[in-house]
């Protein structure tokens, strides 16, 4: 078990280093840092002096190590476009993205597991069938069209919910939250639904398939033979064993959550990291792009590690 966790940790570090190398190469080779800092009237001597002062004449590995050191302290330089420290931009927008991602994951997990279990138990009911059709739609519709569809229905036609922004937010320390105000909560609904929909369909199908499989196993038959009530078998015995693959997939899906968050944030003009990244790509704002990349890699490594850890908690066989 310890070996399992250590291997997972090492893998995460490798990913972060590899992504760090890409981010660093972007800084070093895309655009000319001297030209963007020195200005037009600089002499050759000025440039050489600046280059020496920024450490651009040092060997590549030393520069890379320095870059990683700065990154570990959260220092990614200054945004080319907004002329502010990238770290400030990230912390400003981090709460919006985390709130959106966590709420949509919760929504997808709770609704997905419930619907999946229901569809597995009442296999031929109307609800089960419509659930399967819904999941087919969820897989073939691109996220931005789902978002636009929701905006059209709930913001344009019914006028119930706002179509963009976060509404009023409450500041708690450096954190901002929309959960404490009415407009904030209303603004969260559509983005959370949009981002959660894809994960929801995936979890639902997975739980249904796994439940059907588990209900056919011997230990469920024996539990029935022992006279344990059906509800208890379904939830204590079967559901618990379906959770291992579900947790794996939810963990692996994190990548797509980040990707879909970029799209969702753009559709709803949500002031989060994804929208920041899209803007940075449009204007070739290298420091912001590099920082976002490092952030994604870090989240990835962390979530992978946590997923591996949760396995061990859920499945006692792995504790050997």
């Amino acid at each position: 078990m310890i070996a399992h966790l250590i291997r997972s940790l090492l893998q995460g570090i490798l990913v972060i280093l590899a992504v760090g190398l890409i981010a660093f190469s972007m800084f070093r080779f895309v655009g000319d840092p001297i030209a963007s800092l020195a200005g037009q009237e600089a002499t050759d001597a000025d440039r050489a002096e600046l280059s020496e002062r920024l450490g651009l004449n040092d060997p590549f590995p030393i520069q890379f190590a320095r870059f990683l050191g700065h990154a570990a302290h959260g220092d990614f330089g200054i945004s080319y476009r907004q002329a502010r420290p990238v770290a400030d931009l990230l912390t400003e927008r981090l709460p919006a993205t985390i709130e959106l991602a966590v709420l949509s994951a919760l929504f997808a997990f709770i609704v997905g597991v419930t619907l999946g279990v229901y569809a597995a138990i009442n296999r031929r009911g109307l609800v089960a069938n419509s659930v399967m059709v819904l999941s087919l739609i969820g897989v073939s519709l691109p996220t931005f069209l789902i978002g636009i569809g929701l905006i059209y229905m709930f913001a344009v036609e019914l006028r119930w919910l706002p179509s963009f922004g976060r509404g009023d937010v409450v500041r708690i320390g450096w954190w901002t939250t929309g959960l404490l105000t009415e407009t904030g909560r209303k603004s969260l609904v559509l983005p959370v639904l949009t981002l959660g929909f894809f994960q929801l369909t995936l979890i639902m199908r997975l739980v249904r398939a796994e439940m059907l499989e588990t209900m056919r196993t011997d230990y469920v038959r024996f539990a029935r033979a022992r006279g344990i009530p059906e509800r208890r078998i379904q939830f204590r015995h079967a559901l618990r064993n379906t959770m291992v693959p579900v947790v794996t997939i939810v963990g692996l899906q994190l990548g797509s959550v980040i990707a879909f968050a970029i799209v969702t944030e753009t559709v709803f003009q949500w002031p989060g990291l994804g929208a920041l990244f899209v803007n940075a790509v449009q204007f070739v704002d290298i420091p912001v792009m590099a920082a976002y990349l490092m952030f994604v890699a870090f989240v990835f490594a962390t979530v992978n590690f946590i997923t591996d850890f949760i396995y061990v908690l859920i499945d006692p066989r792995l504790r050997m």
Partner: protein
Amino acid sequence: MSVVSQPPPAQAQKGLFARAWDSDVGYSFRTSPVAIAAATVTVAIVFGTTFAEFITPQNPFDAASLNLMDGFTPPGEAGAGSGMIFRFGADSQGRDMYSALLFGSRVSLLIGTASVIFSLLLGVTLGLVAGYVGGQIEALIMRVADIQLSFPAILVALLVFGIARGLIHPSLHEQMTFVVMTVAIGLSNWAQYARTVRASTLVEKRKEYVDAARVIGLRAFPVMLKHVLPNVAGPVLVIATINLALAVLEEATLSFLGVGMPPTQPSLGTLIRVGQQFLFSGEWWILLFPSVALVTIALSINLFGDWLRDALNPRLR
């Protein structure tokens, strides 16, 4: 399409088409309504977009043929300026949506196809080399593929797009967008081909015919290209079909985000991005038709790919 995946001919005297029709794949196609429908729609769309110039009432990107007075004509009505009937309505500049759709679908399909070919060539080459040569080269290629696969394709494509923008001179941005998009989407999807091809190459290279080819003195390159490649190509075709749908959707997403085709040469994604601005003012047709076209294209290619996968190799299911 089914002709490509033909098993070796049994009766050589019959024509190619007749043989395809008689084969297992041909039979499976004839008896699958979903496959026939998906193929028909795909062929119709490819035909329509290829000959867009001849079947559309106007060239939507030739400013001279537009009449501003036609702006916002609802579907099925005559424009106030030109008197022409707009089947799918007109956008803010009097551009016929039907024509814009066909031209936009063409851009989407072209980028999709080009990027699939790009990622296929790259992935198959790297996979073949990794599987056949082995050793440290294999470890390096597959490690890169692992890292690439753990990142979502959209993220990789956005990144490549951003870097390419930084490297290319700003005056060339518009002309180069097509190439940049192709490379960006292609680079974000090669890893799957590499993995599949490497896996089957590992199996194939232990077989006797490869030994035989080596014994008669062929060097590594011809052995890979002429002997191993034809035997690992089957699954690649299936992945390519399904990836075409993904690539079209990826292109649409990028263009929708505003980091793709510019409004001067729009793809379906760009059209949807433009149409979204008119969502609140009630001109629904500017948004609806490109969205429907996108979903139709993606869905029919997807269904066709699903069928192809099942028909070619039941074990892949």
